[in-house]
């Protein structure tokens, strides 16, 4: 199964194994990872599963959809060009090794 790495604001990192057909958000919450709140449970409503995608991986992700784009304007931490909602990143085998940085806060 593909694994992804979350890097916390303090530099510590967590490597998380994903299950088939899940999003980066689901993998994070299933492992009880601090830093991903996901209040709406993955319904693209709350902007509390915000992540910064490592630059080397950015081009390999599908484009930001319209509703995700609008939600990213409402994130608690600053929106950057590599900001994404982790609930909208579906993990495929090609994303094995994906690196996501966690923002300072989610609300």
């Amino acid at each position, binding site marked *: 199964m593909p694994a992804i790495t979350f890097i916390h604001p303090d530099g510590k990192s967590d490597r998380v194994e994903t299950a088939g057909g899940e999003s980066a958000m689901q993998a994070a919450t299933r492992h009880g990872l601090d830093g991903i709140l996901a*209040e709406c449970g993955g319904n693209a*409503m709350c902007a509390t599963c915000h992540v910064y995608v490592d630059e080397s991986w950015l081009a390999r992700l599908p484009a930001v959809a319209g509703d995700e784009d609008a939600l990213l304007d*409402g994130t608690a931490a600053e929106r950057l060009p590599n900001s994404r909602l982790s609930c909208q990143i579906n993990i495929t085998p090609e994303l094995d090794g994906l690196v996501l940085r966690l923002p300072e806060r989610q609300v």
Partner: protein
Amino acid sequence: MSAPGSAVSGVPHLDVDPFDMTFFADPYPTHELLREAGPVVYLDKWKVYGVARYAEVHAVLNDPATFCSSRGVGLSDFKKETPWRPPSLILEADPPAHTRTRAVLSKVLSPTVMKQVRDRFAAAAEERVDALIEKRSFDAITDLAEAYPLSIFPDALGLKPEGREHLIPYASVVFNAFGPPNQLRQEAIERSMPHQAYVAEQCQRENLAPGGFGACIHAQVDEGAISAAEAPLLVRSLLSAGLDTTVNGIGAAIYCLARFPDQWRRLRNDLSLARSAFEEAVRFESPVQTFFRTTTRAVELSGARIGEGEKVLMFLAAANRDPRRWDQPDSYDITRRTSGHVGFGSGIHMCVGQLVARLEGEVMLTALARRVAKIEITGEPKRRFNNTLRGLDSLPVTITPA
């Protein structure tokens, strides 16, 4: 209440009435019975299917093509009965019609908009706590859970000052009306005319103050997103669903924190837990207990065969305490990871006002926890009965300032 038996279809038939006063007084044993009887049950009393386990409730919520909302999310089937009021353009609609109206409300109640109103909501929470500290002893429902949202939400919407006393009774009619034709529903609808007239009037563009949520909905007409005839009905959705629900949510949080002083201490030691303390109260008490869907085709759900045009009752509250999904589901734990609970629903109809509710809950609990050392229940809590909502009518408390 009978033990679950097996019927021809393989779906257990139960004779429980989930809209009965004795059930409302203590729904938990029946929730367990419903969950343990099977993944899908049939309730003979109202001739509906029921799902009470997390997996099935989540599955039904996330398959709107099969389990539709346009035939009503109460017991009444709009294909066979005339709705008591014109259907909601968002709650009682399916895609593609739903998609457009939902987008409008999502925009009006977005995370970006919440950032703009946050300071105002927080200041009002501080003011309310000031007043409560002055009183020391008060009713946590009327003086806190109702008074706080009433002090901000109608203004945020842009309502006129007159007639606001209709707001909570109107919402109570709406949520009672989702239930079966029992006494609660009939009485609510019989008394509803003045509340309906008030609400219809307030939804008109000229009655909504500039800058409020209501005016923002009407402004979408100018953008071409909705028609002038649709806008008032979308404002109505906020009036129906935006107040009584948060009253019950905040009431639930106070009731939990007063009953579980260890959790109150935990919150006082770490105010950043305020938001999750509110969220956990929504899971634990589930202010919105149930919703119906109607099948658009014959479907198999977890081995049960359900025909077309059947009502399916989703027990959101039972799903939120399903031990298959939650560790120690009957304990209120403010550090729990609540993501995925269905207290706000799930899928395309998930509560569009959830961000407003969370903001109100968070700033209120933060203000309280900062200033109050202890909350003690000093009298018998009284329950408020409603076919859909679970909450208290009265909760006498005394607080000790920090």
